[in-house]
Structures are given as structure tokens and as C-alpha cells.
């Protein structure tokens, strides 16, 4: 038993190293597929060696084996079906859901360990780790389910919480939760775990329910980080290094993504989590005044403009995902390229509902990824662009971010489409984006609005260009 334990730990180390190399390779487009395979190989090694450890320990009853096989088959089946069936537009929901399941598994493992724990094992550090695992895992689980519900647009999750002061509630919950963990650690008792689970469930809801729309990428990245930290905490509970190492890797990567997202919105993490966006600056009448000079256009006019364009840039936003317009956009781009125009895509870091959302959608539509330009790369060259086509994006192209220091999005870096010779905005109406502020871009001199559903609009333009 002792020898097999040492061998198993060494093999766990191999798995951890493979995870690191796998992640490293995922960070580069050329090696990404192999990196993911390597990482999944590491997971397989970890699972197989664990099974071998159970065989070597020879304590598992036939019922235990049955449960393991049943669990693996059911879980594997559900996972495979979800992974194969999901539409690329639904990717944010799926990632949120998987995040939550990982967190939930950590909670349950810590709970199961707690039940089987003897008094000598229940030292302060193990109990503290158990409490932490329960707290982080539960918040991740429920928080992710709420995020899933919001992204799936289930109306229950879009209501406001019937709580007068969510911040105060969160603070009280946090204090009680810390108290419960201290209690577990100090007295070595298990019952606070149930309290932690219940309170953390509430906390998961009160933390994520008020967050919506454009802040979703930050939340998903943060929950991703939490699911890793929960696994790491579980690693402390069962004293298993592979859990600690891989959990902290995931924790770190999630935190980095969170930082990138926050920077792209010029907001601090605390502001995203606890600050509510001030809604609507000024009375509704101001919108009408601002939009007095809006010019509307038709597909035929746009086709004429595009016919003369040398350089065209598409600026996609969440609306592109909603309208599932990525294939239509790709078709339009192909036609324009055949006519000799250069086509590029300007991707804002927080466009969409998760980090890299737009890139995945466009990749699905076979858009070559060297045409996808980051904001910082494309902004200096937008002055030489003939036509910028904004599809389903709003706040990320709102010039108020640069001009109005009192705006809720002040200081947020934007894609400066107004520098282009002509800006075409495809949008269903003049309704504001998530930040709930009017967009002077729509009324700018060089802007033409095409009021229509994103996909239909692009298809109409494709038809009109073909007829020229």
C-alpha cells in the first residue's frame, strides 16, 4: 500500500507536468490541438492510476466499483452528448455549466471525505481546507448555474433579487461563512459544513444575479478561476498534489482572463462584482435630440458603397451571436474579397458574452484567423478604412467612452470606427446597449443605420452586391 502510494504520487506528478505542457501549448494556435490532447492524456493517466491505487488498496467493495463504473458511464455520456450537440453560439452557457459542475464535484468530494473522517484526521488544516472547498465550490456551482441561466436567457435569472441591500447581505454572509470555517478548524466538528453549503448557495445567487450582459465575460472568467481554486482546496483535503497543482493552474489562468476582461472595460474587478452601472445619463428626451440626425439606409445603397470600397472592416458584437449571422458575414466577406477588397474583423476584447466569443463564432464560419484583428492592432489603421460595418455591437464602439468623462463607460477602450470613411451600423433599433446610454456614433455624419435583424440584413446586402 505504502509503495503503491509513492508510485501513484510520482505518476500524479507526471500528469501535473503534462497539464502544464498542455496548457502551454493551448496558448499558441499552431500547437493548441495537440496541447488539448496532451492535457486530456494527463487526465486519463490521473484517472487510470487512481483506479489502480484503489485496486492496490483492495478495500473497494463490488458496490463501490459498480458506483464508479455507473458514474463514469453516465457522466461521460452526458458530457459527450453536450459537447457534440452544442451550437457555437451557445458556447458561453456550456462553459459556465461545466465550470459549475467542476465546483460542485469539489464540494461533494470534500463532503464525502468529511463523513468518512476520523477524529485524528480532522486536524485544523484539513478542516479549514474542507470548509474552503465547500465555500468556493458551492459559490462556483450556484454562481455558474445562475450565469448559465442568464446566458440561456431563462427569465427567472433576469429578475432583480428581492433583497433591499445585496451588498450588506453579502457582507453578512461572508462574515458568517468565515466564522463557520474558523469553527470547523478550531473545534474539528463537521456540522458547520452544511451551514457553509447553505449560506454559500445564497451567496452564489446574490453575487451573480445582479451582474448582467456585458459584464458576463468577467464573471465567467472569474468562476473559471474559482472552479480551479475549489479543486485545489479539495486537494488540500485529501492531501493530493495533482489536485493542488492543476487546481492552481486553472485558478491562475482564470484570474488572468478576468484581469484582461476588466482592463478591456476600464473597470476594476470590485466594480464589476459589487458596483452597479449607473443607468441612463440624462432624460430620455436627450436621446431624441441626439438621434435627430440619424440617417437610415437600405441594402441596395450599402451594396453601392461596398462596391467602391477597397478596405472593409467588420465589427461584430453580441448581436452577431444572437442573430447567428456569422456565416452570412463570411459569405459577404468572400464576395467582397473576390471583388478585390481587403476584409478584416475588429474584435473588441469584451465583445460577446465570454472571452474570445467572437473569435470562436467566426472560426466556426471558416473565417481565417489572420483576418481577426485585435482592438489595439486595428485602431491606428481605421483612418484608412473605407467602410466599417458594425453588426450587433454598441457600447464597444461608443465614442462617449473617449469624450464624456461622466459616462458610465468613460475610459473604456473602444474600437474607433468613426475614423472610417463610412460607418454602417446594422441594428434592429436605436435602443441602447448594456450600459444603457445613447450612442452618438449612430448620429454621426459618416454613419448610416441599417435597421434590420443582423442575419437578414447581411443576407440582403449579399443579394444586393451580387446584383450589381
Amino acid at each position: 500500500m505504502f509503495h503503491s502510494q509513492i508510485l501513484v504520487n510520482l505518476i500524479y506528478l507526471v500528469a501535473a507536468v503534462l497539464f502544464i505542457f498542455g496548457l502551454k501549448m493551448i496558448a499558441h494556435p499552431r500547437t493548441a490541438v495537440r496541447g488539448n490532447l496532451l492535457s486530456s492524456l494527463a487526465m486519463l493517466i490521473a484517472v487510470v492510476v487512481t483506479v489502480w491505487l484503489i485496486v492496490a488498496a483492495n478495500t473497494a467493495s463490488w458496490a463501490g466499483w459498480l458506483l464508479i463504473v455507473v458514474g463514469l458511464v453516465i457522466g461521460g455520456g452526458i458530457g459527450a452528448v453536450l459537447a457534440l450537440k452544442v451550437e457555437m453560439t451557445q458556447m458561453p452557457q456550456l462553459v459556465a455549466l461545466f465550470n459549475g459542475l467542476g465546483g460542485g464535484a469539489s464540494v461533494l468530494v470534500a463532503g464525502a471525505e468529511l463523513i468518512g473522517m476520523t477524529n485524528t484526521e480532522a486536524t485544523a488544516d484539513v478542516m479549514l481546507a474542507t470548509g474552503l472547498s465547500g465555500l468556493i465550490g458551492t459559490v462556483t456551482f450556484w454562481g455558474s448555474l445562475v450565469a448559465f441561466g442568464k446566458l440561456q436567457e431563462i427569465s427567472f435569472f433576469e429578475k432583480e433579487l428581492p433583497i433591499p441591500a445585496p451588498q450588506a447581505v453579502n457582507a453578512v454572509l461572508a462574515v458568517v461563512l468565515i466564522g463557520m470555517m474558523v469553527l470547523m478548524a478550531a473545534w474539528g466538528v463537521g456540522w458547520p459544513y452544511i451551514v457553509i453549503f447553505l449560506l454559500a448557495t445564497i451567496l452564489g445567487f446574490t453575487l451573480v444575479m445582479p451582474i448582467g450582459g456585458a459584464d458576463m465575460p468577467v464573471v465567467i472568467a472569474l468562476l473559471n478561476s474559482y472552479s480551479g481554486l475549489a479543486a485545489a482546496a479539495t486537494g488540500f483535503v485529501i492531501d493530493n498534489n495533482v489536485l493542488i497543482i492543476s487546481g492552481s493552474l486553472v485558478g491562475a489562468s482564470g484570474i488572468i482572463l478576468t484581469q484582461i476582461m476588466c482592463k478591456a472595460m476600464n473597470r476594476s474587478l470590485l466594480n464589476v462584482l459589487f458596483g452597479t452601472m449607473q443607468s441612463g445619463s440624462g432624460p430620455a428626451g436627450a436621446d431624441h435630440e441626439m438621434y435627430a440626425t440619424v440617417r437610415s439606409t437600405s441594402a441596395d445603397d450599402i451594396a453601392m458603397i461596398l462596391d467602391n470600397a477597397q478596405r472593409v472592416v467588420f465589427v461584430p458584437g453580441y448581436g452577431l451571436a444572437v442573430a447567428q449571422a456569422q456565416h452570412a458575414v463570411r459569405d459577404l466577406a468572400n464576395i467582397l474579397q473576390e471583388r478585390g477588397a481587403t476584409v478584416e474583423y475588429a474584435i473588441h476584447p469584451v465583445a460577446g458574452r465570454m472571452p474570445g466569443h467572437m473569435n470562436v463564432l467566426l472560426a466556426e464560419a471558416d473565417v481565417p484567423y489572420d483576418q481577426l484583428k485585435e482592438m489595439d492592432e486595428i485602431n491606428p489603421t481605421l483612418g484608412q478604412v473605407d467602410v466599417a460595418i458594425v453588426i450587433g455591437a454598441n457600447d464597444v464602439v461608443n465614442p462617449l467612452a473617449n469624450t464624456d468623462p461622466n459616462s458610465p463607460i468613460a475610459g473604456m477602450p473602444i474600437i474607433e470606427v468613426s475614423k472610417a470613411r463610412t460607418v454602417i451600423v446594422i441594428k434592429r433599433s436605436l435602443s441602447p446597449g448594456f450600459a444603457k446610454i445613447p450612442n452618438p456614433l449612430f448620429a454621426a455624419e459618416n454613419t448610416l443605420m441599417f435597421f434590420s435583424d443582423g442575419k437578414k440584413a447581411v443576407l440582403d446586402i449579399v443579394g444586393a452586391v451580387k446584383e450589381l
Partner: protein
Amino acid sequence: MIRNLLLLLIACCLVGTAASQLAFAEDKPKESSASVTPAEEAVPTAEATEEAPKYTKWTALVASVTIFVLAVFVGFEIITKVPPTLHTPLMSGSNAISGISIVGALLATALNAQWFASLLGLVAIILATINVVGGYMVTHRMLAMFQQKR
């Protein structure tokens, strides 16, 4: 870069083994010193014998915390400067890795005598397996899309 990584990792292992050896080494002298000094008052002796195993535990904990902190740095080191194009696959790929708690789930299910613990373990296995299998497969699907166009 990869060399740095390996160095860090080796450092992790060294610290880990050193700390655990230290734990074993510290264990014995503590006990013996407690037993060869009967002249001392009873209260500190009792404390010393009580504290000896605890001390071992704390040392092992320090080793684990060391591994945790170093692994976080390795994580920071390898993830920074990921192109935004790959943010979604990176997220779902790393998310699949967080399904590593499947290891804990397997152990909890098999090695636990209590039926309720095994039940929790079963649910944990299901959740973690969905996370792992689904996560890797969907990441592969996405990355394959990115690769076709090269």
C-alpha cells in the same frame, strides 16, 4: 521558457520532498526529547507529545502550500500573452483540467465505508466526468475549427 518551467517544477518537488523528510526527521527527536527530559514539568511534556504529530502535519501543510503557490506562478507564467483568439478554448480547456477533482471523487466513492459518502462520491464522479469529458471534447471541437484554416 520551458526550461524555466521545468526548473520551477523541480523546485516544487524538491521543496515538497525536503519538507516531508523534514517532517519525518522532526517527528522522532521531538518525541525522544520529550521522553528523556522527565525533570521538566508535566504540562509542557504533555504539550510536546501532543504537539509532535501536529507539527508534522503543519510541515506537510507548508509543503502543500508551497506547491500551491509555485503552481499559481507557473500558471501565471504560461497563460499570460495568450492571443485573444484562443481565450474561449483556453477557458474551456483549463475548465476541463479543473475536473481533476474526479480523482478525489473516485477515491471517495471506493474507499469510503459509509453509504452516504459513497452516494456523494457517485454524484461527484458524474459531475466531474461531465466536466472532464465534455470539456475536452468541446475544446477539441473549437480548436479543430481554428486549425482547419491554416
